């Protein structure tokens, strides 16, 4: 496959189609409108492809539920306020163990906020988001190539664990153009028995999340939890960047990690030994891998385009084994690598060491 230059949102669309996505429902919202536009054109060309511009975000996710139950690889996409609306359906899919891919190209919030890139939805994404006791797999790409790779992987993970999977990126990832190579998708593995298509001559099937007996509901919760534990054990992904000799390690994901990489290049040129730990799976968070790093590194600095959300997972991972600082730019501000480099330089020089800002 040749390298092509594409915009982030379109890369997600193309990767989804290549992964076998044949149902998309969505509602326009900036900064991800290129996804529904791309899907409307591409799904028209695919046999059995269905594109529905839904009347609302809520309708979109429930259409995805129907399509998923009927056996299609299905996707919806939106940006922060729209993802809030979809939570009803995401919770329902977790309960009913239905696979689907949900893309959140985050923008500044809370409320309507703005349309600039932000990372304020980390809590919502990694803590389940909707009501009830559940988790979803959350993938945080930081490049065009990862948008393609992780979108494809998201469909496989969704099927494998029968769970919604979220791509958590932001307006910058969606709008920028970068070269990308689309990998060959894996053949779909999804048992027929999970698909609802009429009982035929056989036994009828029920898909439901309503379990009125509390003891039965408890058992269902534990069943889901055991699945989440397996996911947490097997599916964490992370990237180490210049960590071998690092005295200070930045922790950042997505666009934040791109900025961090730019900052690290400058810092290294000045002789500062700074590295990056980049979670690729935000849930499950690569807790053990980060904890291992804290055995040899004393200083961590979490950088997020928020007031500090992932920093809580970093604290849970490091458990007081090292100092943890934080730098955040919420509300749709995208700082430059120079700004972050300056922040790191000040902290790095501080004789008192890095002090947790909380």
């Amino acid at each position, binding site marked *: 496959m040749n390298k092509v230059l594409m915009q982030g949102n379109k890369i997600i669309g193309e990767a989804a189609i290549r992964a076998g996505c*044949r*149902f998309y*429902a969505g509602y326009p919202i900036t900064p991800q409108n290129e996804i529904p536009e791309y899907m409307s054109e591409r799904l028209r060309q695919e046999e*059995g492809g*269905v594109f*529905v511009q*839904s*009347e*609302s975000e*809520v*309708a*979109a996710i*429930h*259409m*995805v*539920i*129907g*399509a*998923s*139950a*009927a*056996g*299609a690889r*299905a996707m919806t996409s939106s940006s922060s306020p729209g993802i809030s609306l979809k939570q*009803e*359906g995401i919770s*329902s899919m977790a309960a*009913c163990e239905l696979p689907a891919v949900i893309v959140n190209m985050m923008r500044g919030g809370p409320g309507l906020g703005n349309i600039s890139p932000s990372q304020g939805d980390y809590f919502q994404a990694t803590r389940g988001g909707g009501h009830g006791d559940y988790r979803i797999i959350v993938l945080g790409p930081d490049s065009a190539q990862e948008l393609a790779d992780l979108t494809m992987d998201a469909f496989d993970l969704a099927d494998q664990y029968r769970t919604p999977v979220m791509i958590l990126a932001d307006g910058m990832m969606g709008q920028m153009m970068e070269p990308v190579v689309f990998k060959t998708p894996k053949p779909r593995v999804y048992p027929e028995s999970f698909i*609802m*298509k*009429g*009982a*035929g*001559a056989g036994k*009828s*099937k*029920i*898909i*439901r*999340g*309503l379990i009125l007996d509390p003891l039965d509901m408890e058992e269902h919760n534990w069943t889901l939890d055991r699945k989440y534990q397996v996911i947490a054990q097997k599916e964490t992904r992370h990237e180490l960047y210049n960590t071998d000799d690092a005295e200070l390690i930045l922790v950042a994901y997505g666009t934040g990690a791109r900025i961090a990489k730019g900052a690290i290049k400058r810092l290294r040129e000045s002789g500062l030994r700074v590295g990056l730990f980049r979670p690729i799976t935000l849930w499950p968070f690569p807790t053990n891998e980060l904890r291992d790093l804290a055995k040899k590194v004393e200083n961590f600095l979490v950088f997020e385009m928020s007031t500090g959300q992932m920093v809580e997972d970093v604290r849970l991972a490091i458990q007081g084994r090292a100092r943890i600082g934080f730098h955040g730019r919420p509300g749709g501000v995208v700082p430059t690598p120079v700004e972050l480099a300056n922040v790191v330089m000040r902290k790095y020089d501080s004789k008192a060491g890095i002090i947790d800002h909380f």
Partner: protein
Amino acid sequence: MKKVFSRPESMKKNIFHYCAGCGHSIVHRLIAEVIDELGIRGITIGVPPAGCAVLAYNYFDIDMIEAQHGRGPATATGIKRVLPDRIVFSYQGDGDLAAIGIAESFHAANRGENITVVFINNAVYGMTGGQMAPTSLLSQKTTTSPVGRNNILDGYPVQVSEIFSLLPGTSYIERCTVNSPAAILKTKKAIRKAFQYQIDDLGFSLVEILSPCPTNWKMTSIESCHWIDEVMSKSFPLGVLKDLPAAEQKKKKGEQAP
């Protein structure tokens, strides 16, 4: 001896949890009979709502997927678009369809989705204990309109069938009731027609059924049946509101006539 009455094959051998005099069990049976008669049990997928009928999958012996409150037509849209040769229906109450799910229902109708909606209108929220519904009548007393529905505070009963009839995407809409044997037979005919139209790929059909809720109306079953005739059907007139395929056929015949 000839067997003249038995359980439809599309019904499970479970006892209804519905209250005495409730219309749900009658409508469930009618749908199951129609599914049997049309021979579509194996290709039919039902979408029950949140509300009293949330447990419909305990009674229908067909594939069923629960919808969140009001989202039935969206879920049904997803299923039908992926499996266009299956027969898909959503079963909804008045709160489900005319309040929390009005957008999903309206737009599925407006898109002309080739699905069937069975709409139970009993003018109250049944499962939650008799609160005011979007279809509660003016001056009707409920647990949240204790002195009666007041149009200034609460608005007016929503005329779902009339409104949906105006949408070019809908093909067949009829309002019926199940308060007498004759009305039940009529309702069955309407349900059968709605399913047949879907089989024939004729588009969106909706059967609204004025359905007794003696428990929350605080009436006996008999009183409830009378109330539908004497009061409820004055606000919600019975009859065929739209039958586009029949109208088109009539027009065709008229053109062919000399």
